[in-house]
């Protein structure tokens, strides 16, 4: 089996993708679920780089894990603050 390095990394990445997605769905605490989502987004950046798509990797890195995660965190923080106020 001439498994070059990239083939091995691809298989590892796809296994991790499925694992982290499953954890993200099954996690009870919201903060952890958001962290798993951000990790999933970072993994998708790795898979874009492996599949020779630098443009998409850059966009997904900045928007996917950067912006989307911060929006989720801000929403959770403001909801947490409202619940503490009650």
């Amino acid at each position: 089996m001439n498994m070059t390095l990239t083939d091995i990394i691809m298989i590892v990445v796809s296994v991790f993708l499925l694992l982290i997605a499953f954890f993200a769905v099954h996690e009870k605490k919201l903060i952890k679920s958001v962290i798993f989502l951000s990790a999933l987004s970072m993994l998708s950046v790795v898979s874009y780089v492996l599949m020779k798509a630098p443009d998409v990797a850059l966009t997904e890195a900045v928007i996917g894990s950067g912006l989307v995660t911060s929006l989720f965190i801000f929403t959770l923080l403001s909801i947490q603050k409202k619940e503490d106020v009650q």
Partner: protein
Amino acid sequence: MIQYAAILLIFIGLYGLLTNRNIIKIIISLNIIEIGLNIFIISIGFVFDGIAPIMTSVNNSSALIYVDPVPQALVLTAIVIGVGTTALGLALAKNIHSKYKTLEIDEVEES
């Protein structure tokens, strides 16, 4: 291998959509579907010994074997559309929480 993982990722997102009752979890499942779909779109354009579709001074001719640039252009659009819907979903989640004091769909007794 990545292509099959991407398709399964879409269906894990769908599974998350079906079983979760928390609004934030539903938005997370939507994002998982979009991430899986984007990886699938890029995976159909991959060519084994192709190079990134950018001409530089090193690989400077259009005769070289490139990866398919069209799915990458489509994914650029799909990512930003995903951000648009996610941001709207989160704004709605904040509104729902401030109006009904809960994020669980079953507890929101909307008539």
